[in-house]
């Protein structure tokens, strides 16, 4: 590296470069393994970029500087006591502080491997590399390369042709730390749904250590739905109130496929979700549902992008949030309907309840439509709890608190009720109620 080059590299990028060199040096004889190559490819791309700033349109509402300014330590090894499991049958996969800490389940017709192992197979390697070419709808998304360069234990799931996995796959990402030093993890998930396959995946982030644990979770999920495949993807984010999370989910949908995404953001101090859906062929259905609840100075930013490139596709999008204290919510929904995408139905709705004068919601729908025979709509509302509803409930003997929580739950229910699977729906409600019970107003 010459001096001139070094001057152009920001201080935070330099820290990541140094971190990578440490890893690289430690590789010794493993230097030529596919995973090392894969990470090095990510690193090469990473070091030529810089992190986005608020001057970048797609990062206008969220400054990532407080995240990347931190001096990260390695994720501490965590010996977690056995976690409370879900009360319905599921295939469990557990990561503690980014390290795989459970056996990988065996399911007939399904391959579940570490990314390191998957890369050893030529066809999986090719598929993974093809996925890496799928662009995020978020421009200047340096976090993708950061994830690729540093992902230590990624997960690869391939659901075979016409395989129907009846029990949900529950991927638990626990973070535990009692120190106030910030660590970083890079969860990575590849999901390959072959023709006619069917699965449900729960991506579940929680904090099992101190309430003040500080860590940054930088997630990349890359998903491909083959023809006629169906995937239900529920994300539960319950990080500590000092944590930061960037979650990138990039989905490609083939003909007749059906993808439903439910994002529940309850924890975290700075949270940014980038969800991109590429419709590669006709007659697809995409459901994008999000709910978030913000307290204190939580900042929760959802950016979605749906690329309607082909005709006869339908997308339904609804995000609802409740913001208290000094919390801030952002919704930026981008929908692109290309010229060929005739008969597109694209619906978008974002609503929020702003419960304190210092809480803020920014909503920015962004529809670009180049086809003429389409049905597209978007709506945004920002409101308060309805006084006459509170009066009505109080007059029936419900306390002020009960009345308000019932109304808040009802507000979110419009999103959660779209979850068809009763177990998943109940799980989502349980998490929401836990959080609402902590709310003081």
């Amino acid at each position, binding site marked *: 590296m010459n001096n001139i080059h070094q001057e152009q590299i920001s201080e935070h990028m330099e820290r990541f470069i140094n971190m990578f060199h440490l890893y690289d040096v430690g590789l010794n004889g493993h230097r030529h393994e596919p995973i090392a190559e894969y990470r090095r490819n990510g690193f090469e791309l990473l070091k030529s970029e810089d992190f986005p700033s608020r001057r970048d349109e797609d990062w206008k509402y969220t400054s990532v500087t407080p995240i990347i300014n931190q001096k990260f330590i390695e994720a501490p090894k965590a010996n977690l006591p056995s976690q409370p499991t879900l009360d319905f049958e599921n295939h469990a996969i557990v990561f503690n502080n980014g390290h795989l800490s459970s056996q990988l389940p065996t399911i007939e017709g399904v391959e579940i491997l570490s990314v390191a192992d998957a890369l050893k197979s030529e066809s999986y390697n090719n598929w993974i590399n093809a996925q890496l070419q799928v662009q995020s709808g978020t421009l200047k998304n340096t976090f993708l390369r950061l994830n690729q360069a540093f992902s230590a234990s990624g997960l690869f799931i391939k659901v075979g042709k016409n395989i129907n996995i009846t029990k949900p796959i529950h991927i638990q990402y626990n973070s535990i730390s009692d120190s106030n030093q910030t660590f970083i993890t890079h969860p990575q998930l590849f999901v390959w749904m072959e023709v006619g396959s069917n699965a449900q995946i729960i991506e579940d982030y929680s904090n099992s250590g101190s309430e003040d644990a500080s860590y940054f979770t930088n997630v990349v999920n890359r998903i491909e739905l083959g023809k006629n495949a169906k995937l239900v993807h529920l994300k539960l984010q319950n990080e500590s109130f000092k944590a930061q999370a960037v979650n990138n989910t990039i989905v490609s949908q083939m003909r007749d496929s059906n993808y439903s995404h439910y994002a529940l953001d309850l924890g975290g101090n700075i949270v940014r979700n980038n969800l991109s859906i590429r419709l590669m062929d006709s007659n697809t259905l995409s459901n994008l549902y999000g709910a978030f609840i913000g307290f204190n100075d939580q900042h929760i930013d959802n950016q979605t992008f749906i690329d309607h490139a082909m005709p006869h596709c339908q997308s339904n999008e609804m995000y609802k949030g409740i913001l208290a204290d000094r919390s801030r919510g952002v919704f930026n929904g981008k929908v692109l309907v290309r010229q060929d995408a005739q008969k597109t139905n694209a619906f978008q709705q974002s609503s929020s309840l702003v419960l304190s004068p210092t809480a803020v919601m920014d909503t920015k729908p962004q529809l670009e439509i180049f086809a003429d025979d389409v049905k597209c709509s978007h709506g945004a509302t920002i409101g308060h709890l*309805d006084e*006459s*509803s509170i*009066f*009505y*409930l*109080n*007059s*029936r*003997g*419900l*306390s*002020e608190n*009960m009345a308000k929580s*019932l*109304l808040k*739950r*009802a*507000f979110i*229910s*419009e999103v959660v*009720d779209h979850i068809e699977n009763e177990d998943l729906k109940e799980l989502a409600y349980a998490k929401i109620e836990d959080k609402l019970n902590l709310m003081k107003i």
Partner: protein
Amino acid sequence: MLEIRDLVVSVEGKEILKGINLTVRPGEIHAIMGPNGSGKSTLSSVLAGKEEYEINSGSILFEGEDLLEMEVTERAHAGIFLAFQYPVEIPGVTNATFLKSAINSTRKARGLEELSPVEVLKLIREKAKMLEIDEKFLKRSLNEGFSGGEKKRNEMLQMALLDPKLGILDETDSGLDIDALRIVSDAVNQLRDPQRSFIVITHYQRLLNYIVPDFVHVLHEGRIVKTGDKSLALKLEDEGYDWVKGGAEALI
């Protein structure tokens, strides 16, 4: 049971109730009639505790307690029930969930044991049947998309479940067909007992054939200008309010 003395109430600086006096003893039924905008709903909202009304002067005692000092929820627990003229629609809260919370928080406040989910459902079903309310209404969002009559019957269901001491019915009969009217009246009559009182606000004498009042009051421009027995309602329906309006001046 209820003693209203010289009650003066305004909303947004405008005086609506201009000195109301009304005494309701246990077991009595009082009907209040009066032209649109005379302040009937204002009076019932003040009794239930709606905040946007300013109490300029006067007092209300309920069972010897100062009602105006009590929160809305406390009033409900103490036994005040208002059947709203326009029940609020609350999407996303199912009728059943709402009824369960209402029943159990009221029971708890009254020192009664909370009912189990099974018991509470049994109770709700039993009362719903009495009011000819289809069970599918229990699963629906509270009042959302209910017809006018369905909303009113749902109000009566809540009243039957919450076992109040004073039921205030604000135009529960308006817009009901004759069958619904009979069902609603039967519900009230079944609840009649020597310890329970009702204030029935209505525009129509018809209701008072079913729910026979002990007293009929005429409210006009924020004042009770005439009080009589059930025959007053008949006369009002035949002759309108003009003659009592004239009487108002005479009373002053």
